């Protein structure tokens, strides 16, 4: 290899879980350091260098003007920009906030919201990165499995697009030889509309998929919502299911709005 990849790991409005998944590359750390020069990673480094970067992982969504400004600058300094995890891709759990009137949100949590807000503005709304800049790689998952991080790093050294699955969780579920909990147990599983990548971990531990990798390609949300109704799930529960990890995506918006 000629030159190491210059990489940055940046956090916006998120929980740091994606960065933690990056640091979960424990046995793989020597390999990562061999192919990558980690130039910016505030959670792990004291000396953080300005770009340009070859590969920038952005965790979290945009929820303040300061973050928006930073995102634009990062975009201009990055060859490849990765929406790193669910918040960056489609808002994730914090995006449930978007259904709340901003004043209600603010006043529930802070006694005098305006006093802070006047110094530090917040949109009181969660915006995925793709709303503002071109995203080169959508790395789904809450968090994205560390193997997908390795895949993104490896493919970047080769200069090719990473192989990130967008078929449904059901494919992985079948490979693990699970009995379908939606068909046979009539439990509301989000697997049929959710992008794979996790290894179908939830159905494997006898739990319905909750959809934490966001929508698969061409997800038929309407049909699954219909199925949920047929198996007896009340309407407000169906809405909650779709309004959880990716309610603000166009794929789930209609079902997530249904009250």
């Amino acid at each position: 290899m000629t030159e190491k990849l210059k990489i940055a790991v940046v956090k916006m409005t998120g929980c740091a879980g994606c960065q933690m998944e990056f640091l979960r590359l424990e046995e793989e750390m020597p390999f990562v350091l061999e192919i990558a020069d980690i130039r910016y990673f505030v959670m792990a480094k004291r000396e953080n260098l300005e770009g340009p970067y070859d590969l920038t992982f952005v965790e979290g969504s945009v929820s303040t003007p300061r973050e928006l400004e930073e995102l634009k600058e990062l975009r201009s300094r990055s060859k490849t920009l990765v929406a790193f995890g669910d918040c960056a891709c489609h808002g994730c759990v914090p995006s449930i906030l978007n259904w709340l009137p901003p004043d209600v949100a603010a006043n529930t949590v802070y006694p005098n919201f305006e006093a802070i807000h006047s110094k530090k503005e917040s949109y009181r709304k969660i915006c995925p990165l793709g709303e503002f800049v071109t995203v080169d790689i959508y790395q789904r998952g809450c968090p994205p499995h560390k193997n997908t991080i390795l895949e993104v790093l490896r493919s970047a050294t080769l200069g090719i697009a990473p192989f990130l699955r967008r078929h449904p969780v059901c494919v992985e579920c079948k490979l693990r030889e699970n009995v379908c909990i939606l068909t046979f147990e009539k439990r509301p599983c989000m697997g049929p509309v959710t992008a794979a990548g996790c290894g179908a971990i939830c159905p494997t531990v006898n739990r319905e998929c909750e959809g934490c990798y966001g929508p698969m390609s061409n997800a038929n949300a309407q049909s699954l919502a219909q199925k949920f109704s047929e198996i007896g799930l009340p309407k407000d529960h169906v809405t909650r299911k779709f309004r959880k990890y990716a309610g603000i995506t166009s794929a789930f918006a209609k079902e997530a709005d249904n009250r």
Partner: protein
Amino acid sequence: MSREREIKVGYLSRVEGQGSLEIKVSSGNIKELRLEIFEPPKFFEAFLVGRHCSEVHELTSRICGICPVPHQITALRAIENAMGIQISEQTRNLRKIMNYGCHIASHILSLYFLAAPDYLGCESVFAMVKDYFPIVKRALQLKKLGNDLVELIGGRTIHPVSAVVNGFTKIPEREDMRQMRQRLVDAKQDAADTTKFIASLNVPQFVRKCEHVALSNPEEFAVNEGLLASTEGIMVEEEKYREYVRELQVDYSWAKHSEIVGRGAFLVGPLARVNLNFDKLSHDSKKLAQEIGFEVPNFNPFMSHVARALEVVNAIDDCVKTIDGVPLREEDRSYEIGAGTGYAITEAPRGLLYHSYEVGEDGAVKKADIVTPTAHNARNIENDLRELVPTIADLPDEEATLKCEMLVRAYDPCISCSVHYVNLDRTKKRKS
């Protein structure tokens, strides 16, 4: 002696989340001192309203990617308390092991990745690889152990999936548990070496007595349940939390500050736990404490690192003991949804974590109240800094700044958690 000085860290590094530090000294007096949290607020307490009681732990897990486990367990316990659900002994024990797994991984991250580089003259753990590879290797192995422990019980390390109201959707396989037990036993030496290594670091001698608050349990070292206790004599049930701790808003920070009613700021975390529950630590961790000359009560916040390391040893011992008593059988998880209000306190790696929920007849959340360890500690960190700064007045700016950062890192703050936590120019100057 510098009488005019400005210590400014635009973006605190090697801590979780987005915070900054600003200290202004004029004529030898501190004019301004602020730990500012510019991590944007996430309004969990607002959007949890209307969500179903069965998913609250799954949602609150997303408050923090470092300590999703205690957020899940605290939410589950608060919901169970609200609906009068009595969990089984097995569930209690599996949750304890899972939280310990999170403590091990988080403590190792804090000690080796976030704190140790300062003491070894490195900018990061990545930079340590060159000169300290055996130490880094030990760290990675222990961290992996903690992570794998959480995955074994919870189905995934970050944001586990199998812990639910009144139990687990799947109980770990006996053989997997047996192997994990062996790995824990084998890791004991590394944990002891970690403690000795941390104790050998040249930690600043800085003592400031303040109230330490932690969970305390007469039966065991408290991680998931117990009484709210303090070094100033508090010893009450968890549902009384709000009678003792109140939150204040400060206008420069998205994190609310906490104080003990009528007394003021307090410290939570490993040092508070070890100070309050030293006699409940495992035999080997107490022995190790003696060997390295660690005595309680200890009021040097920098010694939190040593407390953290001792807790890793204790976690391993307690996990092994607990695993031996878990029957690992499938259990009935059914429960009835009912209206009520529930409170729960647990110990996250960074300290006391409080959740409370009011649940309606239909199982929907009507009210949520969450206070995280770093929100508890925020004001105390500032109080410590206020006393530390005059003692380092003779140091050059760069060193004084580093000392302040080291103090903040001793608390291992988790800023994402705390917001519900100024103006700085971090995009222009990317060097913190």
